[in-house]
């Protein structure tokens, strides 16, 4: 998440030596740059000619947008950028909406009207994420094949919903749990229906948390590669699969691949940047502190 956080202004901790503070500051910058460098190099490479990108690393080159136009060109038969983008867009949108529609009632129940053994239920949800996906891809593939879902957007919508649901329930539960119980009781006494209670009383309070959760679901679904390449490697696939298809079996492709990667990263970075204030507030509010 490092790219979404803005470092607070350097202010020496009381009683700390100025020199120590400065050394720590410089060290922080070095580490930060170290992490940022690969991304920076990716962007730089995207603006190079193939031959320049493949030769010894340099910052001295004539920048060009040719790679970007090349990779986004429709190349008949193969997955094009526009198709992949459209597929990703709809799959991410629908799966995220589904996740929220399912997770909000679940989180309400777990946080506000917990049943017996609710901790076990919560743990079960998150435990589904312990399984290595590669260990379950086989049965999923067979089920998808038997349901005639291989190569469809539907299979990815279903899987991304299932993949993000535990996380969303887990996060939303902790946001909901922070709603003062008196507010819920007050709304009961005021004669609010269950739906009205969630819509008019709880959601306005947890809105930043809901936004943060939804954004995380969007990011995870947007970035997902393994399911997409296994179950839907062709025409109806998503942006990560498209990026992968920029690897060529012959010739140079580093600059083109870099340009494609930049294009794949851009929407997520933009979304994160736009939402960063809400996002940080949301994340600070609950689960992932």
């Amino acid at each position: 998440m490092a790219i979404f956080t803005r470092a607070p202004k350097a202010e020496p901790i009381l009683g700390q030596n100025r020199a120590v503070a400065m050394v720590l500051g410089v060290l922080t910058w070095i580490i930060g740059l170290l992490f940022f460098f690969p991304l920076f190099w990716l962007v730089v490479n995207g603006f190079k000619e193939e031959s320049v990108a493949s030769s010894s690393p340099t910052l001295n080159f004539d920048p060009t947008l040719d790679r970007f136009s090349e990779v986004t060109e429709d190349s008949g038969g193969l997955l094009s950028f526009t198709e992949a983008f459209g597929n990703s867009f709809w799959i991410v949108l629908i799966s995220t909406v589904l996740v929220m529609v399912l997770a909000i009632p679940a989180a309400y129940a777990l946080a506000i009207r917990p049943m017996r053994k609710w901790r076990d239920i919560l743990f079960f949800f998150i435990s589904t994420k312990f399984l290595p996906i590669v260990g379950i891809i086989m049965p999923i593939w067979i089920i998808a094949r038997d349901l005639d879902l291989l190569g469809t957007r539907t299979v990815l919508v279903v899987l991304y919903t299932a993949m993000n649901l535990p996380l969303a329930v887990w996060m939303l539960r902790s946001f909901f749990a922070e709603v003062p119980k008196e507010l819920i009781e007050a709304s009961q006494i005021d004669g609010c229906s269950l739906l009205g209670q969630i819509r008019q009383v709880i959601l306005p309070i947890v809105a930043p948390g809901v936004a943060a959760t939804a954004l995380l679901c969007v990011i995870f679904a947007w970035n997902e590669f393994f399911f997409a390449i296994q179950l839907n490697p062709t025409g109806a696939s998503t942006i990560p699969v498209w990026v992968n298809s920029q690897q060529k079996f012959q010739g140079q492709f580093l600059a083109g691949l870099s340009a494609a990667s930049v294009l794949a990263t851009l929407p997520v970075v933009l979304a994160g940047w736009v939402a960063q204030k809400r996002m940080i507030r949301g994340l600070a509010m609950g689960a992932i502190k």
Partner: protein
Amino acid sequence: MAEVRYQEASRIYPGTEEPAVNQLNLDIGDGELLVLVGPSGSGKSTALRMLAGLETVNMGSIWINEVDVTLKPPQDRDIAMVFQNYALYPSMTVGDNMGFALKQQKVPKAERAERVAEAARILDLTEYLDRKPKNLSGGQRQRVAMGRAIVRQPQVFLMDEPLSNLDAKLRVQTRTELADLQARLGVTTVYVTHDQVEAMTMGHRVAVLNFGVLQQVDAPKTLYAAPANKFVAGFIGSPAMNLFDAENVDGKPGIAGVAVPINDAVAAALKGQSLDKVSVGVRPEHLTLGTAGIEGEVTVVEELGSESFVHVRTDHRGEATNIVVRDRGETQTARGDRVKIDFDGPLHVFGEDGQRVTA
């Protein structure tokens, strides 16, 4: 207008043995302001929440206006509640907060606005109707919470420590305003507090609870003058009543070697009880510093201006024991003085079982 009745009502929290509220019997009259008071864990809030429908009644029943509401959900009880932390909806304006219940009841918008405006006028909130709760002071929030309750014109007001989040000065002021408002509206009110001064000053009647059991319910004066048992005697009154396990002094209960003046009726009632298991209580204002009586040494003098409280250390049953005596404002005593304490007023005698021995 409504009467409220608790009938053998008990609440046992899951996983606990002892009931939080134990077979509570309580009748609250129409228009009455009844205060539930007790130390923390006494079950006073639980009792209120049972009436609100926020807490299951495990045994017994609760009635509002001769209707059994034991199993009814909160919204069907026609009650309004003021919470300790006010529980204002943070995303709504003051006006929307106050009109929320009416909106749920599908009251037409015009009537809603009118009733909200009326309540706002009573509570001096008119200019704040468009503000969000976070932009209000503590006292204003408290009034909004009150407003939310009165807009509904409910059968019963329930108030759960509504003043305890205010600072001391505002609390005293709001206390009077609240009592006045309740009297004007004439709505039956159940009021929970841990503050016995609040209970005494506001309640038409006060119900004292301890460990989930109702100890006594009476008018404040009666509670003060004739506490039913040792617990009530010690709980009501500030500074607290001087309360001692008695000594047997010449066949009479005594304090620090001095027999207390009991009348024949009390003496007769104590017949057969072991006198050193009997308790004797006397309020600070019913003691005087004189020339005869319990001897002791002054340890602290609390000057309050209109009166002063003199703390005297004495030897009672072989232990250093503190007695508080009320003296006049400009007391002549100071720390270290040797004084004698005389009885000057009613005594409270509690038998072996802790119950008041009535004469």
